[in-house]
């Protein structure tokens, strides 16, 4: 593309391909940087705790192993190598998807995660979908409509201030113990998924609804809404077809909050509903002080965060030209 046509494109409000690629490239480098930082911090934590680690690997705490045995374990974990070598090896293994070996379970951390991931993805993705749908529904139906607006924001405030496990317990008391329509716990079937999914979705959906409504109310003040109404378009149609499209862009900035809420909430939700998954894996690793497993899961969480944010960002860069031209 020549400089002249690039200028023309910019004047017309359309981003040039170069500008889009540049924005995506910058985000990509930043994401890789964050992951590198997370890996480095994880390596430092592993290294600082490695002394006890070799011991606890042999026979748990309080054991009194021979020096030969300890040296053997150190060699097995590569702890006898110089530090920079260990660091480079660690990064090299991460690039191959190897997150290290669990002390307690004696299997690869990446394998343990892979075994548990399906259940958690099912839970998190369905909860995210429910949260976004609830937020859109609540925001579109109640924005600038008194008294519904006040009622909805009261409910949202309560839900966002309620701890995740309390929401789960309330749902359990209502649907499992009083109405007896849904199972208390377990992994099997869609019926067992409903309560954990709602538990995870409600607090996230409440925060999203608050942000979306305030954005929607701002958009509804814009002149083009008045234009659409003056053409005789029905209020609901204006809201969904015109206002919502603009308001949804604001949700981009929330993707980090959503991913964080889902991953953190998964630990609580899977514990409460006795479900298998990555959250359960994390909790059992914490209680057994399985440091490589805990750090491996944290690096994995950072990876998920970076990838999701990057994907959302790229999608919106392509959809919304304002993000580049502004």
């Amino acid at each position: 593309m020549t400089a002249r046509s690039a200028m023309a494109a910019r004047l017309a409000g359309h981003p040039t391909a170069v500008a889009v690629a540049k924005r995506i490239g910058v985000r990509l480098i930043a994401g890789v940087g964050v992951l590198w930082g997370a890996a480095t911090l994880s390596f430092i934590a592993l290294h600082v705790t490695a002394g006890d680690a070799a011991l606890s690997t042999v026979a748990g705490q309080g054991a009194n192993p021979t020096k030969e045995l300890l040296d053997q374990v150190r060699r097995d974990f590569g702890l006898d190598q110089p530090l920079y070598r260990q660091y480079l090896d660690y990064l090299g293994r991460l690039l191959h998807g190897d997150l290290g070996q669990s002390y307690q379970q004696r299997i690869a951390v990446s394998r343990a995660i892979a075994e548990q991931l399906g259940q958690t993805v099912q839970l998190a993705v369905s909860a995210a979908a429910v949260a976004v749908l609830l937020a859109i529904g609540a925001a579109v139906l109640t924005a600038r409509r008194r008294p519904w607006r006040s009622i909805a924001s009261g409910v949202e405030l309560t839900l966002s201030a309620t701890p995740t496990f309390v929401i789960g317990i309330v749902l359990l008391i209502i649907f499992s113990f009083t109405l007896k329509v849904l199972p208390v716990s377990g992994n099997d079937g869609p019926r067992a998924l409903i309560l954990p999914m709602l538990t995870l979705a409600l607090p996230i959906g409440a925060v999203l609804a608050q942000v979306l409504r305030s954005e929607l109310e701002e958009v509804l003040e814009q002149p083009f809404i008045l234009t659409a109404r003056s053409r005789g378009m029905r209020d609901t149609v204006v809201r969904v077809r015109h206002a919502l499209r603009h308001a949804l862009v604001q949700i981009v900035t929330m993707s980090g909050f959503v991913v964080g809420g889902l991953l953190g909430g998964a630990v609580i939700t899977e514990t409460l509903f006795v479900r298998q998954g990555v959250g359960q894996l994390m909790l059992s690793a914490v209680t057994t002080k399985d440091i490589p497993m805990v750090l491996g899961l944290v690096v994995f969480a950072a990876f998920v965060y970076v990838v999701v944010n990057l994907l959302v960002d790229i999608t919106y860069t392509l959809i919304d030209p304002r993000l580049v031209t502004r």
Partner: protein
Amino acid sequence: MSAFTATAAVLPRTSRVRLRPGLILAGLFVAVVVAAALVPQLLAPHDPLAIGAEGAFLPSGGGHLLGTDESGRDVLSRMVYGARPSLVMGLGATAIAVTGGTLLGLAAGLGSRLTESLIMRLIDVVLSVPELLLALVVITLAGAGSTNAMFAVAFASIPSYARIVRAQTHIVRRSTFVEAATGLGIRRSTVVWRHVLPNAIRPVLVLSTIGVGTAISAGAALSFLGLGAEPPAAEWGDMLSNGLQYISNDWFLVAVPSVAITLTVLSITVLGRELRRRSEGRST
């Protein structure tokens, strides 16, 4: 990102001073919780750890307003005594987090470009991990227990505070009164201490009220996971996870601490939001 920074830009700003009923109720409830934390012995009808002779799983009524738990201990008394550890967790974790966040944020906002980018990239890295997982890492390395849980919750929320302080420091240090003070030849440390810090920290102090509620909730979550306070201490999160074992027979044991935690967090959030609304109304 934590929930309170996410919702920071949401509320409509009104500068009118108006006391809504919700605000009064929230204030009253916080007052009750503070009273329970300060003088639980005056409010609780029984010893929270004493095992009653009347028996376990007693329903409400009689000598036990909220009944007794699985060991025959008075539920109301345990709820009253549970206020103190919750408030200590909320206030302690927030104080540590605000102090750490302010130091980091000031160092980033006033330091050299290299210092600033180092600190901010570090914060980006830490923010890429959910707060609960960060707290769990601290507990794995330091061990469980209520003090460690407090530090874990604090550590996890330092980055959010540091970001706000840095942004604010940037605004303040370019303002005319700081330029004037520097122009008058006042020492840099005095300028930072007397002029930059007080102005940079104000929005953080307002946000930290909401942060107290968030910290109480996070601390209760850790106790719920069995990583916070040790039994038999009267602590809401622990009462809750304990009661969960008996939820199919007697869900009341779980409902009582749930209501206590939720109302406390909600009341503090409502008060914090009002505070934020007013401070923004005045400053703009």
